């Protein structure tokens, strides 16, 4: 069976900005695949090329084995697309927008009414369907857009940062819905810069950074590959520099400890990378007790996707996020996109 989505060595520039330098990944049928990356990583550009809104400069894009460049219409029929910024006609009601969408995807006239009603019910839009979309909250708009994207029962649903700007409740609604969608057999491709979102939802993911893929695989795989567990240790609520140094020295001599970092911002707490699968915590506590250092708190965790990103780029996603948002000219991009 061919991959649901195949992207190989995709490149796309806007003027002299290389939005996508070299992106490849494969989405298998029936899975939720996450594209994780900070602002400006090239997620939306990749999605725009996939949805046939932008022509790639180079590379291969296939949906169910069909080339998006050679047969754009066949690809459009197979994809549902929920854009990052929802564009709705404020004057239309939700139901009218869905009717328009149904006609654009050529649903047979006789099933349109039923199909729209089903989606309205599944997405809990009964109360809003006959109101103008201009009156909707962000969460309701997203749900309407999900309904619109699924009206023609696409094989692959693409969502570009579907939960940005949503409150926690609406975000949970979207997450649960995507899981339901997967169990119904629809392939889902979702972009996000929220680690937890991708970690919680995605069967597999690709992390992209500045237009290139830096890791691809299952969340657990990527984290395991990184190796070791993360241990956070506080000797006291606020530890003195001397005590922190002393503890660091002692812990570094332990055989299962790979690295010790003193986090001054967090009151000199200690971050350790330890070999996984050992009874590390009790050994740490014991060796501290031997030199009469107390333990205020001690916790062990598996590495997170942020640690994966950190290991590959040397900064956390949050840091990258802050760095890139100051460097973008959104007006100019909007202009470019219309060309």
């Amino acid at each position, binding site marked *: 069976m061919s991959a649901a989505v195949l992207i190989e060595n995709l490149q796309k520039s806007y003027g002299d900005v290389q939005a996508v330098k070299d992106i490849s990944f494969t989405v298998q049928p029936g899975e939720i695949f996450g594209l994780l990356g900070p602002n400006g990583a090239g997620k939306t550009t990749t999605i725009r090329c996939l949805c046939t809104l932008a022509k790639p400069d180079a590379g291969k894009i296939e949906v169910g084995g069909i080339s998006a460049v050679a047969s754009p219409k066949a690809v459009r029929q197979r994809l549902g697309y929920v854009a990052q910024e929802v564009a709705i*006609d404020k004057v239309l009601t939700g139901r009218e927008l869905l009717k*328009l969408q149904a006609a654009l995807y050529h*649903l047979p006239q006789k099933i349109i009414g039923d199909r729209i009603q089903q989606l309205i019910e599944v997405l809990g839009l009964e109360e809003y369907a006959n109101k103008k979309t201009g009156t909707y909250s962000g969460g309701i708009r997203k749900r309407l857009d999900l309904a619109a994207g699924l009206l023609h*029962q696409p094989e692959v649903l693409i969502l570009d940062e579907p939960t940005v700007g949503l409150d926690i409740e609406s975000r949970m609604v979207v997450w649960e819905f995507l899981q339901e*969608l997967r169990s*119904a057999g629809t392939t889902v491709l979702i972009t996000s810069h929220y680690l937890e979102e991708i970690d919680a939802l995605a069967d597999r993911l690709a992390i992209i950074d500045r237009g290139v893929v830096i890791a691809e695989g299952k969340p657990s795989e990527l984290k395991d590959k990184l190796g070791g567990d993360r241990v956070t240790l506080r000797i006291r609520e606020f530890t003195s520099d001397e005590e922190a140094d002393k503890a660091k020295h002692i812990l570094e001599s332990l055989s299962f400890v790979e690295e010790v970092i003193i986090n001054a911002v967090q009151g000199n707490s200690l971050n350790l990378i330890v070999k996984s699968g050992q009874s590390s915590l009790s050994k740490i506590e014991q060796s501290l007790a031997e030199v009469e250092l107390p333990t205020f708190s001690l916790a062990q965790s598996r590495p997170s996707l942020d640690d994966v990103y950190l290991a590959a780029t040397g900064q956390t996603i949050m840091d990258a996020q802050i760095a890139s948002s100051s460097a973008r000219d959104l007006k100019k991009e909007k202009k470019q996109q*219309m060309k």
Partner: protein
Amino acid sequence: MSQSISSQNIKSVLAPNPGISGQSNQQSSSLGDFIQETLALTQRLFIQLQRRPSTLVAGIIQPFMWLVLFGALFSKAPSGLFGTDLSYAKFLAPGVIVFTAFSGALNAGLPVMFDREFGFLNRLLVAPLSSRYSIVAASTVYIIALSFIQTAVIVLASAILGAGLPGLAGLSAIALIVFLIVLGVTALSLGLAFALPGHIELIAVIFVTNLPLLFASTALAPLSFMADWLQVIASLNPLTYAIEPIRYIYGHGDWAINSIVMDTPWFGFSFGAVILVLLAFDALILLAIQPLLRRRFA
């Protein structure tokens, strides 16, 4: 998520189904698809109009004011000034009909431009439209319908103001002429909506085209009143080719396809010849915008 629908049903609602659009008979239904998408897009424009009728209201009040104000402006003009037994009301009605249709058509590109700017157009472009010309077709159908409504109101108002009412054949001929001028100008405006960078530029183009084309036509004054150079321009202006035959219809109950309805500095045009000129104008514009549309619709 919803209580009223069982989980088994939810599954079947959400499951993929590539056959839903009846792809088996792909080729044969593509005309049907084109009609379906065009109708849906047209319907959207009419819903917008119904919920925000101010453009239509303004589009009816404005020509009405033209009729009343210009009528009053020349109401004491010597009789026969605008041609034998042609009152100014009769003279003015055709000018207002054509100019109103023209202005409306010139603005046709604006909604499309706003769809582009707000990203709504992307919703249409990711859909498997049978042809993206359905977007153009929908706007054209909509603008033509609006022009017919406006024309009907102007014809009635003029009748009340003393211009008389052409017969059924005359009214049909007027509809044909309005159709031809609106088709070409709408196509031009839509072409610009895809070619220009944004709505500021489109509005600028509309602004510099609108009134000059009005004054360089025979809408408000006959050719014989004009300076020689303006006569030449007015004789090349497509608006003149729409105004003059309608004016002839208003002035003569007994017009025919070979009646000479229009004089230029060079030669006269029969009714049939004027229609051919308008057809040529449409063909020229439709050809000219092809590359603009294709660039975006490739």
